[in-house]
């Protein structure tokens, strides 16, 4: 019985990886790609449908929607990726340590986590953001305040599931210390479930930023950010739908790309799941 990797996973992984890279590049080079200045207002040109000068039309302040969408990528994508990366690393580390060592520290930390998770995330974010004041950095802190907790739970349960497996015992017999076991044996085996969760979180975090911006606690006007663009344009959805459509599409496509990327990476990493990435060669 020969086993071979399914080719489809590799193609899809490559495709989504390219997509994701394009998105990140867009956010970095927004300045060069934008046809107009995203902040220049022009009341005479407000709520104009898409034209050659304004490919995505203009919003209620006469600003170019395309340029704002491109600049918004910087805020939405970049900030979301940064926040998710930080919460992912911190939360997973705490979770792995708690799961591996257990004991009183584990119990105390888990109760703290329970306490934080008992609050509705957005309400907590609003409260923290309100205390700290507005701005993107404070919005990130606000969302990150509770954002790391699910990773702790996920990582911890992953560790508990494999902590007593024979290969962990064998690693101890091989002279590996605790840190070495956690880094080389435990982390790789729980990584895929954490990563999948993280990619889904990217979308949630983007929406979280949008929500905070809508309340004036995140991005401040006239800063461009997809979520705030959508909420600002709610009032004239019927008369100027492009003001909602393009930022909305951008948000949807970005979230989808990262979700599918997460799936593809997980499939690629799960080399040991028969049917997931490997099939019997006929």
């Amino acid at each position, binding site marked *: 019985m020969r*086993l071979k990797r399914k080719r489809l996973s590799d193609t899809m992984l490559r495709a989504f990886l390219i997509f994701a890279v394009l998105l990140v590049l867009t956010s970095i080079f927004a300045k060069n790609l934008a046809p107009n200045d995203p902040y220049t207002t022009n009341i005479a040109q407000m709520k104009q449908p898409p034209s050659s000068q304004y490919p995505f039309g203009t919003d209620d302040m006469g600003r170019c929607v395309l340029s704002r969408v491109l600049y918004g990528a910087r805020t939405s994508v970049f900030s979301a990726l940064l926040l998710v990366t930080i919460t992912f690393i911190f939360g997973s580390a705490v979770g792995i340590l708690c799961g591996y060592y257990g004991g009183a520290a584990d119990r105390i930390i888990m109760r703290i986590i329970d306490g934080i998770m008992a609050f509705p995330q957005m309400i907590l974010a609003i409260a923290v953001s309100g205390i700290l004041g507005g701005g993107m950095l404070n919005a990130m802190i606000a969302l990150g305040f509770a954002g790391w907790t699910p990773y702790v739970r996920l990582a911890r349960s992953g560790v508990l599931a494999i902590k007593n*497996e*024979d*290969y962990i*015992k*064998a*690693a*101890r*017999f*091989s*002279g*590996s*210390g605790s840190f070495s076991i956690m880094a*080389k*044996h435990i982390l*790789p*085996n729980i990584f895929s479930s954490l990563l999948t969760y993280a990619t889904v979180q990217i979308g949630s975090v983007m929406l979280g930023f949008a929500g905070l911006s809508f309340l004036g606690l995140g991005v401040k006007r006239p800063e461009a950010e997809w979520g705030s663009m959508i909420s600002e344009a709610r009032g004239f959805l019927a008369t100027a739908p492009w003001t909602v459509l393009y930022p909305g599409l951008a948000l949807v496509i970005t979230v989808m790309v990262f979700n599918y990327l997460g799936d593809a990476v997980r499939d690629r990493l799960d*080399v*040991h799941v028969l049917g997931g990435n490997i099939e019997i060669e006929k």
Partner: protein
Amino acid sequence: MDKALLRVDELKKTYRRGMAEVDAVRGVSIEVAESEIFGIVGESGSGKSTLLRLIAGMETASSGSIIFDNEDIRGLSVSGYHTLYRKLQMVFQSPATSFDPRMTIRRSIYEPLRNLCGIRTERELNERACELFDMVGLDPALLDRYSFEISGGQCQRAAIARAVSVRPKLLLCDEATSALDVTAQANVVELLCNLSRNLNMGILFVSHDIALVSNICRRSIVMRRGVCEECGLTKDLIGDPKTDYTKQLISSATMAI
């Protein structure tokens, strides 16, 4: 003077499950000489695996003593275990799960060579790994496979290779052949016997199969519910069983033909 390699004295282990207490091991004493293959026969719940784990230092005994190579190995420090594992190794029941599914066999074999034998260069590591595979009768090409890509018998041999890489004085085998086919089992058992002879290595062989134990262990004990039912020379246990349980084990083991 026949100095015992391992001496276990009145070992007890009690687990607390909620309000209840479970006595997994209730006062077991055994002695294993150097290069001896010693058998522990018992069914599930007999405490044989717990006994092994206590000896290996994976769990702390409630009372009793374990003297290995003239050292009390209860409650060692981290560096103490480091030293212990150069002399004491273990092979587990399920061959597939004794290797990290995300690491090649090669990487798994390198681990004890790096940590316990102090070998650093890739060339030396590769040399030793190939040597070990040769010793256990495996093709060195299998080093670059994953555990799920090779058969159970091959996996178990690789696990034995990993364990004897440090040339231990005592090898603990926890139902090491129970998950294998009859043919693979015979090969692995033959391998263990040869290694014991060639490397002057003692083996503590735990199994539920009394027939198997009778073929390779000079002395053994029968465990049941945490206590030692009978102990002594295996051929005496088989030829003249004193307890009903031992008699039951023997009758269940006999092939009808």
